């Protein structure tokens, strides 16, 4: 589905995730975050960048490996993205929804 987010033409899948990370920028992220009820601050960006780098390296994302990243601990991750941190943060980061159970 093609749509415009923060003035940029982007493609989303049926769950609202960007299908092309190249269409991502910080304004798009902020708009997606607002939809998820998250206001992005200084602490969010390193986490989003970490998720993107893991995705580019094709590492499957889990709460556990985010907790071990050294960027944020698990408690902090839940606090930054309340109500489902991994799926929300992934959507805001412009990467696919993780198919992880842990």
């Amino acid at each position: 589905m093609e749509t415009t987010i923060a003035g940029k033409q982007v493609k989303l899948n049926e769950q609202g995730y960007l299908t092309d990370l190249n269409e991502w920028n910080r304004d798009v992220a902020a708009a997606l975050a607002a939809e998820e009820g998250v206001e992005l601050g200084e602490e969010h960006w390193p986490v989003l960048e970490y998720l993107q780098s893991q995705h580019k390296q094709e590492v499957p994302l889990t709460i556990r490996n985010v907790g071990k990243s050294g960027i944020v601990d698990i408690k902090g991750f839940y606090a930054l993205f309340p109500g489902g941190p991994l799926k929300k943060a992934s959507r805001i980061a412009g990467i696919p929804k993780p198919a992880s159970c842990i």
Partner: protein
Amino acid sequence: METQELEQNAVKVEPAKVKKMMLILSKATIDNVYACFILANGARMEGIEAEIFFTFFGLEAVQKKKIDHLHVATVGNPAMHIPTLLGGLPGMESFATNMMKKEMEKLDIPPVGEFIEILEASGAKLWACKLAMDMFHLKREDLVDEIADIITVGDFYEKASGENTHLLFI
């Protein structure tokens, strides 16, 4: 005719989402413990509240001394696909458990102790059953720090109040 009118007038209601999972863990075989923890953690990952009530043998999963020594059952477990007599040989449980743990590590599933830390950090609440504690002569200090409190069944049901709460016995 009336039914048709009713159907036409019906407002589409969104299905109610699960809000809270109340899990009761009564067993200490490692497969049951992981099933419980993965359900609780999976709930938190979806923004669903999760609480676990550890009762009877489930208490082994939160005892400091037992936590690293949980086993899969090799006897009385047809899914193991080994003859019962063989399953009863010394060392079989440890062997099968180690095999299982290796497979789980590959999938980034944490050991039991670390999993409990993850659950606590995710906001899941962990409770120990008072009656079972008394029965096994256990004290608070025998349990891991992540246990929020020792409570009765009545207390647990109290915590289950609210719409769209689900209880699950493992």
